[in-house]
């Protein structure tokens, strides 16, 4: 089983209802429409899976997400009005959607960010020297000291 098809169970907060998830898919796609080789929010399963993972660690965003999902109207108009009239609520909702989208390992891979979580990558023994071996520091050293010494008392 790969990391990308593990089903994540939320640790806290009641799960969103199927109707809320449908609404989330519509609204989240207004924020992340997809392109440049990356899927939309719903294409990345934000509404079915990753929103649970995000809200499990950010209970403080739960109220904002549910409040936005309760807003009625055309999704594009809802998002546009929210951004203009209630930037704080929009910001919390956008954080939840973007946070859910960006913890999907498939999305991280497409963005070029390695691994589902920060990866161990210890330096090789001569790696530090390799960045300096062509004398890139020589001009800095050649210009000499740039500090002001302690004045004689």
């Amino acid at each position, binding site marked *: 089983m790969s990391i990308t098809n593990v089903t994540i169970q939320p640790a806290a907060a009641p799960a969103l209802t199927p109707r809320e998830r449908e609404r989330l898919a519509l609204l989240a796609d207004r924020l992340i*429409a997809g392109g440049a080789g*990356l899927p939309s929010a719903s294409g990345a399963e934000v509404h079915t899976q990753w929103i649970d993972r995000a809200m499990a660690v950010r209970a403080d965003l739960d109220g904002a997400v549910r409040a936005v999902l309760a807003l009625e109207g055309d999704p594009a108009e809802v998002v546009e009005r929210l951004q203009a009239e209630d930037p704080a609520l929009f910001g919390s909702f956008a954080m939840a959607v973007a946070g859910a989208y960006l913890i999907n390992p498939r999305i991280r891979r497409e963005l070029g960010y390695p691994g589902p979580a920060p990866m161990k990558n210890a330096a090789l023994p001569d790696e530090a020297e390799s960045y300096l071996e062509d004398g890139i520091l020589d001009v800095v050293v050649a210009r000499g000291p740039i500090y002001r010494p302690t004045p004689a008392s």
Partner: protein
Amino acid sequence: MTVSPTADVLIVGAGASGATAAKHLAAAGFSVVVLDQGGWTSQSDLPGDKPEFELLWGNHQWHPDPNMRSRAEDYPTNLDDSEQPVYMYNGMGGSTVFFAGVWSRPMPSDFRVRTLDGVADDWPISYEDLLPHYEATDYDMGVSGLAGNPAYPPGGAPPLPAHPIHLTGRKMAEGLNRLGWHWWPGYSAIPSRAHGRQAQCERLGVCRTGCVIGAKGSADVTLLPEALRHGARLETGARVARITLDENGLANGAVYFQDGQEKFQPAKVVLIGANGIGTPRLLLMSESARFPNGLANSSDLVGRRLMLHPFGSVVGLYEDDLEDWMGPAGTQIECMEFYETDASRGFVRGSKWHVMGTGGPLEMATRWQIGEGVSEEPFWGEQFTAKMKQAVGHSIDWIVHAEDLPEEHNRVTLDHDLRDADGLPGAKISYTTSENTHRILDFGLNRALEAHEAAGATKAWITFRNFSSGHNLGTAKMGDDPETSVVNRWGRTHDVPNLYVIDGSVFTTSTATNPTSTICALARRTAEYLVENRREQEVSTA
């Protein structure tokens, strides 16, 4: 009230300064008790090895603002009159648990700003006075770096080899060379090789959310275990309410709360290491008939001259994939080109810069939304994925730290309307960024934009212009004159001969450098002074 056996030395606070003093004093044979209001932080609880680490960092449990965390060990801060938030971490290791490990020394001129630049005050000590303690604490904290930096006087090499400057540092170094500006591989309290109790850095790049592998020079990893090994007693969940005095005006211990119980720890000598907010709070809470204005506050300077040391940042985007998440997060290269005063720039003193790892993808999304000149650009909808694809992995982040000169109206006082979990008053912060600090930041940020252009950035913008660094400094000023300072050159309060302050609150000026190296050096210097003068030290016998 529960009373423990008398300690030779009582230390309040188990952060960088308290842990440094505890290690050295316990190793010298003193009986040492350390009281800290927080507890130990388990590496397995830290966010940095979890997919949600960026979301976790911003949540209430791990937020750097104690008001946001609101843990039992945190005390509230009133920020109504502060331009800046105040960041700190209360617990074993203190704010080193979350610091980036940037290990930066001031320059010699920092200790003589009145003599050289006609501003603020000279420190009563010099760079040379602190040099042996800088070099000793470099070993304590597993510092990696490259010797020979022309920004500093000659001295010993860091104990461990420098980390790779990586693709980000290399790209920017090439740009700085085109401009003829100084740069040097960064110094980090993060070991490039295994060192003592510290593992070799694995470059996860999550230093600011706590090191999950025990590599970073967190005081709870490096110093406190050594203090314990030498017999120090560390008390967690122990919140000090007041320092007490005997009839002769000597400190004789502290009253503290632990598990809801009031307790007393008697001691011959008391050291306070609660840093720039907690230390003045405790001194002000320790008022008495002898010191009605707060303990050791005959100068009326306790709490004043607060320097929050604001920083700015400039992020640039590049065609090349620079793997900008690579650790150690703190610093790939540094630049001291604009550190010293140049009167033609319209301000005194200057700034220290370093290239940091930008972080994960959510951090990059935030940078797009807060940037000057880009926050008005479309980001959501059709733009989101294109902009993230353009930026993630492709950025370089300049951090510009300005020197923040002291002003007496910037201060910490008590807020009796806010209370911590033990009913003690909160800290009220009054802080306005000075015009000189603004000018330093504006100048530095404009030069950093030029550096990005020279390095080949396709786009660059200012993401922070003036924001709190978590460096809380200056509120118990060090000086020779008891009328214009709180502590003397050894950290001893002028008013109470066996009460010492050993943390960032004693900074006479902020310098433009990250302060933890100097905090540790000062604490070690005070500890050494106590060891060498143990027979002459006045102590309470009550």
